[in-house]
């Protein structure tokens, strides 16, 4: 059993947990914030994120783990971005999450190790300009490409006091980098193109705590709080500054209707405005506090086999923290649907979530994306 678990972990670890979902709204600040949800929670619009044992959001949910479980997910997105300079369709593929959890035998504890995207800063943007060089106008084409983002590596432990109460703690390591390449080409080919490269790396720590309590047969409440220290930012190994990270507060409720249907809703508040001064000082536009609302449901066709093609639906609306124009908030609205299936005596399975996302961020800036997330999970 131990070797099988090792094989699974090795296999999953070979997939780099880089951030996902490139977007034109991930260009500024630290990038596009990621949601540390499992595919199941994503399919409910994030509404089950506080309650789902395979999500890396609420450490208390680790207490629900009763088997050694490993999972990873891949996300394919197709998007159409509109900006004042035009529109474009783009697609990309990322691996936004790896999760391994197991109960500690003989105790009421469970542990989990996960890596998920914290922010995603994968983008490639192009712009045109005209410079007057040697008294002659010369058209230039600038391309800026960034690969990477900040990854949230969490080690969590949860105590299951009973089937009604779980509490958990998580320690977070925030790490990652942006490999940035800026190039300029000229329409007049007597001018050589130029490329500049830099690596911006990040390092920070954080802690999180959560609780999940079942009140009666129907209602379950959950809440979590997370605090991160300042993110240290280096460019090519030289310290360029720190970025204060937000306090995260989240709470939610889940209502069980019989054996087959559960509804959930949650809200998450992040004090991203605390990073505003640091981001502006480093040359950015700034940051604003964010709040996110999620509602969703899960309908089980067969309560004895909950992963046999259940129906999951969700909706969420969120404000994104890093505007492209100061004073112009970016709002994201998404609808989701998903299901799952287990094989091999429930030892392996997949989860699927399909989402449609709309983002708006000021005059002329909008985006529509279709996201398909596939998760593979195994119970060796």
């Amino acid at each position, binding site marked *: 059993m131990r070797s099988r678990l090792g094989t699974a972990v090795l296999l999953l670890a070979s997939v780099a947990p880089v951030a996902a979902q490139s977007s034109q709204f991930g260009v500024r600040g630290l990038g596009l914030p990621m949601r540390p949800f499992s595919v199941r929670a994503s399919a409910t619009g994030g509404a089950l994120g506080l309650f789902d044992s395979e999500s890396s959001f609420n450490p208390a949910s680790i207490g629900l783990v009763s088997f050694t479980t490993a999972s990873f997910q891949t996300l394919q997105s197709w998007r159409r971005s509109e*900006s004042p300079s035009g529109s474009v369709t*783009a697609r990309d593929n990322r691996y936004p999450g790896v999760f391994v959890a197991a109960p500690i035998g003989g105790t009421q504890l469970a542990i989990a190790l996960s890596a998920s995207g914290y922010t995603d800063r994968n983008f490639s943007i192009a712009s045109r*300009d005209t410079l007057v*060089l040697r008294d002659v106008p010369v058209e*230039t084409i600038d391309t800026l490409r960034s690969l990477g983002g900040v990854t949230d590596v969490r080690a969590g432990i949860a105590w299951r006091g009973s089937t009604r109460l779980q509490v958990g703690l998580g320690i977070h390591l925030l790490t990652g980098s942006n490999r940035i390449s800026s190039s300029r080409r000229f329409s007049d080919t007597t*001018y050589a193109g130029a490329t*500049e490269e830099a690596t911006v790396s990040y390092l920070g720590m954080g802690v999180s705590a959560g609780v999940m309590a079942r009140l009666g047969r129907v209602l379950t409440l959950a809440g979590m709080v997370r605090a991160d220290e300042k993110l240290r930012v280096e460019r090519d190994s030289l310290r360029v500054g720190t970025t204060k990270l937000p306090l995260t507060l989240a709470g939610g409720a889940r209502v069980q209707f019989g054996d087959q249907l559960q509804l959930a809703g949650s809200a998450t508040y992040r004090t991203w405005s605390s990073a505003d001064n640091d981001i502006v000082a480093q*040359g950015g536009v700034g940051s604003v506090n964010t709040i996110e609302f999620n509602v969703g449901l899960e309908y089980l066709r067969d309560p004895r086999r909950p992963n046999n093609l259940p129906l999951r639906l969700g909706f969420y609306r969120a404000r994104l923290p890093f505007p492209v124009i100061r004073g112009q908030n970016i709002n994201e609205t998404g609808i989701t649907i998903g299901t799952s299936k287990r094989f091999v005596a429930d030892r392996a399975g997949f989860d699927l979530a399909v989402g449609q996302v709309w983002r708006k961020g*000021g005059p002329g800036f909008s985006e529509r994306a279709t996201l398909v997330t596939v998760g593979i999970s195994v119970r060796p």
Partner: protein
Amino acid sequence: MRRLSVLMVAAWTGTLLACQERLTTPVDCPELCPGNSLIVRDTVIEPVFDLDSTFTGYLRATEIPALLVSNGLPAGDARSWATFPRRIDSVVVDGLQQALTLDSAEMTFRVVGLDKSVTGTQLVVHRISPAVDTNTTLEQLDVQLTPESVMGRIAITDTGVAKLTFKGDALGKIAVFAADSFRLGIGLRLEAPSPTGVRLESLNSGSRPPTMTLFGKIAIADTARQRQTLHAAADSANYVINTPPLPGDDRYALGGKRGRRAILRFRAPAALKDSAIILRATLELTPSGPLLGLKGDPASLEVRGVLADVGAKSPYIPNFGASVVLPVGVTEVQSIELRSTVATWFVTGAPPSSLVIGINPEGGSFAWPEFFSTRAAVGRPRIRITYALPSQPGHP
């Protein structure tokens, strides 16, 4: 369990294969531009005052790549000459020496450059003493180029082979004598309605230097072998030219028969070292008057960087350099793009920031450009450098 493993590996492989990206998005700056683009600047550097030099003597007298002939061309009045080896007047057939009875003869030259806008150009071939050599001056040669010594004229209308044929009584013009050790010398001058010139292949330049071909018969019974041909390429050929006088210190001339080059020494701006990206570097040379040469047959101006600045024999940086065609008669500033060479001046372990300028084909062209030097009051050489400074992209 095997099914489980297969499933895991298949899922993992499929996921990897599914990875695809097409990310580029057009954007408006500054909203979606995190950080500045590369900062583009322009600067001009001049060679260090009074440290530019000219050198000559890069070719030996016998290494000339072409024979020049002209009539009053401002770039230089030129005559050429050639000598043919001791005449062979017999052939060996079946082990027996057979005397050749001449029927006809041809003298051929390959024209490699001319000004086609001048019509009526004729190459005049004179018989001269075969004692001519590389010490012969233009005046000494001209003395022999008399109307009495004319062997014939060849109309020059295009590049290619120009041929002078001797038959009958004209064969006497190519007769050789014991006093000349049975050798033949010819001198070449040009006649044309206006000053012009032609360039001919020399002994060093190609497959057809001046050549004499003899056609004749031998007295044997086998009619198939009675007709015989003898070829003899010139064993020496050269030209003499009176180029314009060398200019003063405020100008420098390039070209000439022995090769004349200039070396310009710059100081690379310290502000550009290590950090700047050279986008364009243009050497600008200002002619001190109309560029001299042969219209329709321009030479190239060649500029090379050096590995070490040791003066006249500075070794070139391999594969780094530039050339530009030198128009004739213009006075406009001549610009040569030198980005790859100048870019080497701003890296660690950079070679000297010196440039050597010359003419191609060196020693085989009428080109005689004169440019202002660092000592001139105006029009000094300079390099315009357009460069980019790093902008540290990727601001939040």
